[in-house]
């Protein structure tokens, strides 16, 4: 019954999306009256979709095996958290989550948006409804999550063990909230292009959505990176896999958009750029999510390939992105440009930021799609890996980091005062760091060395905009910016340190033997079997020491029976200056020795700490702007009184 109720709610929501589209398209003539109806429809649509999603979670929590999706992806023996997370750990469920977030975002825009004129708002709501309608159709016709299975099996197939991790319960929803938050920026841009009302009011309406989506994407990517780091047992934190790139591309576009929105909001400039980025950001979310999910791109994360779904998705993408880009091409020439500015100005720096981020985005997009394009053009099969991405995106990211030293300190429109004194702290410290690395680590590569120097120099430089300000009266948004830039510096130091100083040891050992890696001496003490709720494992006990004190690490090699899979649970010892990472491999039957893989990764934790700081900076800016708007509104209301 629950499944049928969910399906009915989904059908009703789809019908309401169609109604909203029709009403919003006709709203231009009907005056204020239609707006109230559209709001009600958008809210009902959001509530119904949420109901459908709740129904899916309910059938997963009850392990209702007569629902096909549950039978294929869940198992009664699973811990409840993974039953819960299992609802979206599969294609259909994740699509339902996507649509749920989309519908709720639409409802929130309809109810709370106050910056925009009514025509632009209703055009935007029409666009949002059109987006929702397409994805409802996709769910109902090609990915029905509530399909029944008759007869019901006795046991489900289980969730991919790699996905049985507390992080997974929250990683996809976080990313999806981010992706779909960008749908609002897309719809608003479409609405504004339709009515030609591209200006500061639009930027103010768009900014909280972009900022919120960007914070969530930052958190999602950071968490995903850490998950891959400890769960896959490969010791790396970024693999340039298509799915990772799929989350990185919208983030790059959203980062650029966030910066150009500031120019549009404050100075009325960069209108075409901003509109383009708003369209690209959500387009990248769709392209990324759907191309990978449909199996058009090969990825370790890919779900089963289904040509019907692939065609459906491609048709939707072509319709939405094609229509939006065509609208852009037709309308952008008639959009008025804002006030002119000098190259050496805040605007100039933000243009440079946009340019570099967009080029990096282009590089990632080309690298991700190149295997597909090459095979289509020449029939050659190839894959594009880290060497390409690191060699191309790496140097550009470093230039971007260098620009961050000065950009935030420049004035709007034109900056006539000397730049060098403002740059001095960062540059001096950066050069000192560069010089210091030469005797300490003579043999590291150029990119890691520059990364270390720039990262360290960027730490004071990112805080420089606070210098000379009355700190207590500094707007929260400025604090947020400084914190986010500091986060970039910290993450950069972590990445450079990881690639410059990591020590790796792959060896075999028997209990009692010692292995050295970096400053650590690790003794393999014992190997014994342990059991979990739905797995058994071999667990090694290792004692790691570097001079004083002993840390015990217990890496496991886990065997799942439903479905049959082995995973390596790395054991990670976090110290103030890095992490010791241990993986237990297989036993060599001939010699009885165990494969042991050890890494010493100095300061690797800074990567994720930096990511968290970036997100926290975004959160401060969001709260700061919201608080200001709230106070301004209250003052306005009091004045009315």
């Amino acid at each position, binding site marked *: 019954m629950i499944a049928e109720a969910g399906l009915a709610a989904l059908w009703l929501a789809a019908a309401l999306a169609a109604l909203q589209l029709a009403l919003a398209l006709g709203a231009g003539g009907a005056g204020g009256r239609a707006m109230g109806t559209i709001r009600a429809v958008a809210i009902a649509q959001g509530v119904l979709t949420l109901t459908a999603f709740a129904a899916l979670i309910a059938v997963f929590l009850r392990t209702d095996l007569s629902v096909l999706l549950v039978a294929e992806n869940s198992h009664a023996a699973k811990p409840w958290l993974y039953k819960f997370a299992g609802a979206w750990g599969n294609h259909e469920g994740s699509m339902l989550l996507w649509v749920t977030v989309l519908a709720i975002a639409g409802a929130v825009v309809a109810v709370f948006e106050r910056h925009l004129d009514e025509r632009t708002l209703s055009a935007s709501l029409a666009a949002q409804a059109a987006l929702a309608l397409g994805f409802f159709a996709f769910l109902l016709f090609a990915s029905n999550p509530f399909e029944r299975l008759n007869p019901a099996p006795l046991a489900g197939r289980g969730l991919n063990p790699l996905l049985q991790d507390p992080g997974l319960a929250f990683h996809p929803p976080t990313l999806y909230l981010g992706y779909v938050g960008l749908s609002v920026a897309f719809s608003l841009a479409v609405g504004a292009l339709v009515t030609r009302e591209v200006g500061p009011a639009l930027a103010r309406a768009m900014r909280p959505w972009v900022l919120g989506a960007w914070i969530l994407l930052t958190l999602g990517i950071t968490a995903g990176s850490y998950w891959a780091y400890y769960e896959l047992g490969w010791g790396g934190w970024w693999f340039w896999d298509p799915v990772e790139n799929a989350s990185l591309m919208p983030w790059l576009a959203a980062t650029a958009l966030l910066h150009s929105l500031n120019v549009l909001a404050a100075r009325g400039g960069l209108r075409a750029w901003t509109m383009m980025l708003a369209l690209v950001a959500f*387009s990248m979310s769709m392209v990324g999510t759907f191309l990978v999910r449909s199996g*058009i791109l090969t990825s370790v994360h890919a779900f089963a*390939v289904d040509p019907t779904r692939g065609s459906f998705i491609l048709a939707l993408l*072509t319709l939405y*992105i094609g229509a939006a880009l065509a609208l*852009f*091409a037709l309308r*952008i020439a008639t959009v008025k440009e804002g006030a002119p500015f000098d190259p050496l100005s805040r605007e100039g720096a933000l243009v440079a930021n946009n340019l570099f981020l967009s080029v990096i985005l282009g590089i990632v997009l080309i690298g991700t799609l190149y295997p*597909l394009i090459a095979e*289509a053009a020449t029939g050659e099969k190839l894959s594009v890996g880290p060497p390409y991405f690191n060699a191309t995106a790496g140097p550009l990211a470093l230039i971007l980091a260098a620009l961050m030293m000065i950009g935030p300190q420049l004035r709007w429109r034109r900056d006539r005062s000397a730049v060098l004194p403002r740059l001095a702290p960062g540059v001096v410290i950066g050069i000192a760091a560069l010089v210091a690395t030469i005797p300490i680590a003579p043999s590291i590569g150029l990119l890691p060395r520059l990364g270390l120097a720039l990262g360290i120099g960027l730490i004071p430089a990112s805080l420089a905009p606070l210098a000379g300000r009355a700190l207590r009266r500094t707007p929260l948004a400025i604090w947020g910016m400084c914190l986010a830039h500091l986060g970039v510096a910290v993450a950069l130091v972590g990445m450079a340190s990881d690639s410059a100083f990591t020590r790796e040891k792959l060896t075999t050992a028997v209990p009692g033997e010692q292995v050295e890696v970096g400053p650590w001496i690790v003794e393999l003490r014992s190997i014994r079997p342990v059991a979990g709720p739905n797995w058994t494992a071999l667990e090694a006990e290792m004692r790691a020491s570097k001079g004083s004190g002993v840390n015990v690490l217990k890496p496991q090699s886990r065997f799942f029976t439903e479905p049959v899979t082995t995973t390596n649970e790395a054991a990670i010892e976090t110290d103030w200056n890095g992490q010791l990472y241990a993986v237990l491999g297989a036993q060599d039957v001939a010699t009885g020795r165990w494969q042991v893989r050890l890494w010493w990764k100095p300061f690797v934790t800074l990567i994720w700490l930096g990511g968290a700081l970036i997100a926290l900076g975004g959160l401060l800016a969001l709260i700061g702007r919201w608080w200001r708007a709230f106070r301004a509104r209250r003052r306005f209301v009091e004045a009315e009184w």
Partner: protein
Amino acid sequence: MSRARFLPLIIFGLLVAAGVWRLATPKDDRVASQLEGQKLPVFALPPALPGKPGLTSADLATGTPRLVNIFASWCVPCAAEAPVLMQLKRQGVPIDAIAIRDKPEDVAAFLAQYGDPFTRIGGDQRSQVQIALGSSGVPESFVVDGKGVIRAQHIGPIMEQDVPGILQAMEEAR
């Protein structure tokens, strides 16, 4: 901004075309082995166990195609593969083998338990020939034609469903 404004649309159009192509042509995830068409490296392996000749590269250029199976007694998938190799043998496929890092008594026990489809078995104590062949693990099998040229490489155990492919490769190597 005159024509450039259509550029994003055009680029997107190309991407859509690539996507349509991908959906229209079924995906073939098989990557052809780089070793196919290459001559075997020159090697001479001693017998892996007493009573059976060893294997040299000259034994694999005698005018008729042969299947070379790389296995080890300590390798579990090799045991799973053994009945299928016996079946191939019965169907007239001449099979030689290279035993990787194995002891003669272990190889003898393995053959006694799972059957012996092999004409010759070379013992590769240090995986040197295995590496020269470009093999990444056990089991692996190569179809070698009468002139000592590798015509097909099969990674992993040969299972029931792989038999037609192997027989076809043997036929094509003739």
